[in-house]
């Protein structure tokens, strides 16, 4: 039987990291994700699995420790919240350029700037469009429950090693701080079985040396490198993940990820209870984005409402997917305010009025 726990989303990330054999964690505290580092330090993972946990002197140090350790083919990760993730962007761009697998977790808080410590989903652009410089993408997973906080750690590493690309879990203060019942992942060997042919752990006699760099001064080489990266991002589409709630016969569609998707599930229940056909599409991967399924649904519904705790970011991707076939609206609170199911219901009344 699986082990059940009542833990916070942040603690679920930390416990899952130990259990699924992460080799190292480098981080720096910031609300609302400080429990990750606190939990790891309390658990003494160096005694449980040999995992290294280190509080770095800053976010910059942490992400560069991740860069270095990732080059050795180890499973390494860091976690932070919005302002801290902004500080890491240079390192993340380098890691993406150097094609190294690693996991970054952003437990998003309201911005811009230092903003607030309350939950937000306003880092969608930063996460999915490349928050640092250059044409790069991260694999972005959006958990909607504490269970998924636990489950996505291992999934993120699977994908990161499959594509030799950094993966990012885009969570928020709500899921980080709330407690739910969690089935803890089965303990796994720490030592990775992923492809290690590219790692820099010392040249052996039977092969040329491996080089890890994000620098290519020759534009021809950098051009080729960019093409290779773009082909890789294209291939990632085979790992698109989403969840559908009552979309089969829906007249209107909500699109929401993470905590907003949980809120919208209740909205769907309430609206269905009134005999109206509302559905919800929840992107699980934000990059690659579930463009195809939304495009497909846009041929059948009368309108789409994208719900996110921001002034409207994911709605742009939803509009691209719908491609003008139906009106696509945005609704959401922001700046650390959480919309309630009633707020979303009111928005539906306002946007879809007459349609129902």
């Amino acid at each position, binding site marked *: 039987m699986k082990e*059940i726990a*009542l833990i916070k989303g942040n603690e679920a990330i930390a416990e899952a990291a130990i259990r699924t054999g992460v080799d190292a964690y480098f981080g720096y505290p910031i*609300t*609302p994700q400080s429990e990750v580092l606190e939990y790891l330090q309390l658990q003494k993972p160096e005694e449980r699995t040999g995992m290294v946990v280190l509080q770095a002197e800053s976010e910059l140090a942490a992400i560069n420790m991740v860069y270095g350790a990732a080059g050795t083919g180890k499973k390494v990760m860091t976690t932070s919240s919005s302002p801290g993730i902004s500080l890491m962007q240079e390192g993340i761009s380098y890691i993406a350029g150097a094609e190294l697998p690693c996991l970054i977790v952003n437990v998003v808080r309201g911005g811009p700037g230092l903003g*607030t*410590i*309350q939950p937000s989903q306003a880092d969608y652009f930063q996460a999915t469009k490349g928050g640092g410089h250059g044409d790069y993408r991260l694999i972005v997973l959006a958990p909607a429950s504490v269970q998924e906080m636990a489950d996505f750690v291992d999934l993120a590493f699977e994908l990161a090693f499959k594509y030799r690309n950094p993966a990012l879990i885009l969570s928020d*203060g*709500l899921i980080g*701080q*709330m*407690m*739910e*019942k969690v089935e803890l992942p089965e303990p796994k060997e720490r030592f990775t079985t992923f492809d290690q042919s590219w790692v820099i752990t010392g040249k052996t006699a039977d092969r040329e040396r491996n080089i890890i760099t994000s620098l290519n001064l020759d534009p021809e080489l950098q051009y080729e490198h960019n093409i290779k990266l773009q082909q890789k991002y294209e291939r990632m589409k085979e790992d698109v993940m989403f969840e559908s709630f009552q979309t089969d016969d829906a007249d209107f569609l909500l699109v929401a990820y993470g*905590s907003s998707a*949980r*809120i*919208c*599930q*209740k*909205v769907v*229940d309430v609206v269905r209870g009134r005999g109206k056909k509302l559905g919800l599409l929840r992107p699980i991967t934000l990059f690659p984005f579930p463009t195809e399924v939304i495009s497909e649904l846009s041929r059948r519904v009368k309108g789409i409402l994208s719900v996110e705790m921001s002034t409207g970011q994911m709605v742009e991707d939803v509009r691209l997917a719908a491609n003008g076939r139906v009106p696509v609206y945005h609704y959401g609170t922001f700046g650390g305010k*959480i*919309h*309630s*199911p*009633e*707020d979303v219901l009111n928005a539906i009344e306002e946007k879809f009025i007459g349609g129902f």
Partner: protein
Amino acid sequence: MTEEIIIAGFGGQGVLSMGKILAYSGIMQDQEVSWMPSYGPEMRGGTANVTVILSDNRISSPVLHSYDTAIILNQQSLDKFESAVKPGGMLLYDPNGITRHPERKDIKIFQVEAVDESIKLSSKKTFNMFVLGAYLKLHPIVTFENVVKGLKKSLPERHQHLIPANEKAIKRGMEIVREMK
């Protein structure tokens, strides 16, 4: 069955831990649970609240706009959450420090004098368990045995010796709760 509860009061009154014990009790009873706290500046000396949901089914939104039950431990929280109780729902409060009492006629209102009782019994630290007891008397959604199991799970090792005192407080809370008409 789904029970949607808000527990609200001052930081330090044990609002969050009461919610946690309730959530753990729900797990012991094989229910789905969610526990969503207010966190941040308001926790440090100001008001604290936690939304707890216990359900036989998958829980959708952990964020709510109305509640089956509000458990209220100070005036600010009463002012904020009285209107958020669903019609026909329940409001349980400690009258200590309350100057404007609840006024709604379409909900059931109960009092538990937990502050007074905990001082009387020299058991101030178990204040929140008097309140939990009162709640469980009114809504026995989890059995007493499962609450004790929940207590054992949620109290850290160094506080395990306090379990009998907590049990006593829960039982006493069940006795002193009364309906306001």
